């Protein structure tokens, strides 16, 4: 019941049961934050760290994050690794195939700004934020699994704070 204690909830005991009241916003946000299924989108070095995070020591599942091989079942792209100019349209297409609400984590320096390939590289996209909107950036080359976990927790906090009215405006 640990989760329920943290919710803004009104509970009342009634004969023959109980009544729980909470805001719809909280329920939706909690649901979204606690089941971020991510797309297996690893291109380079960061993919190995993404694999390590999914493996036994760091265990992504604890955060409710399970890998999906298809964008249609995913809520989140973790762009792990360098995105080249040839790959960029594919990333966009994968993003377009995902259902709303969808989110993007840019993992590693390459996805933020090109990282070590910013200078002198003719084929690396300098940041993925002009291909897809990014919700969270994680620095590192590659980031440690803990950094990735921290980024995901940070993203969950961000999701929990969102307002339903913001969604309408979108």
């Amino acid at each position: 019941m640990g989760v329920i204690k943290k919710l803004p909830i009104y509970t009342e005991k009634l004969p023959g049961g109980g009544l729980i009241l909470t805001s719809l916003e909280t329920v939706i946000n909690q649901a979204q934050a606690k089941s971020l299924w991510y797309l297996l989108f690893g291109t380079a070095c960061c993919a190995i760290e993404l694999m390590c995070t999914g493996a036994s020591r760091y265990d992504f599942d604890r955060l409710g994050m399970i890998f999906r091989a298809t964008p249609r079942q995913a809520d989140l792209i973790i762009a792990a690794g360098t995105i080249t100019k040839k790959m960029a349209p594919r990333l966009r297409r994968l993003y377009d195939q995902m259902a709303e609400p969808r989110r993007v984590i840019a993992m590693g320096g390459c996805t933020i700004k090109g990282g070590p390939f910013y200078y002198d590289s003719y084929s690396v996209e300098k940041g993925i934020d002009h291909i897809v909107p990014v919700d969270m950036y994680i620095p590192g080359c590659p980031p440690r699994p803990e950094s990735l976990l921290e980024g995901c927790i940070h993203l969950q906090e961000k999701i929990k704070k969102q307002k339903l009215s913001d969604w309408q405006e979108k």
Partner: protein
Amino acid sequence: MTFDELKEYISANYPDDMTLLDTGRCEPFYEVKAEKLVAVCKRLRDDEQLKFDYFCNLGGVDTGERMEAVYSLASYSMKLRLDLKVILPHENAEIDSVQEVWPAANWYERELWELYGVNVKNHNNLTRFLLPDDWDQGFPMRKDWDAPDFIRMPEL
């Protein structure tokens, strides 16, 4: 066969085809004329003493004035290593494909064409494969290449 023996063997058997360059360290580098390349390669592969049947590497080099193609060969059974170098002009360079000798050369030659603009004759599939399909900015590995969104490392 040690490298010294290899050098002796080559100078005895391939006197006209290959010239030793002194730039290579530890392992011999030989210069081969572009028009003789395929014939020499075939001989090297079929030579009973050498058996260079392993195509390790092909790299293009742009020194600013000329193009070079460096073939690194090895032999699975005789445990030998050898490098061949073909010197080409900077513009409109052409080289014969060694695909018929070693099928492994196929992709290396495509890469040489794509990144350096060295035309490979008699190649069965000279198409773009490393760069995006709609690439129209020339041959990026050349020293004088530049593009609007290409950022050079600041000279610090």
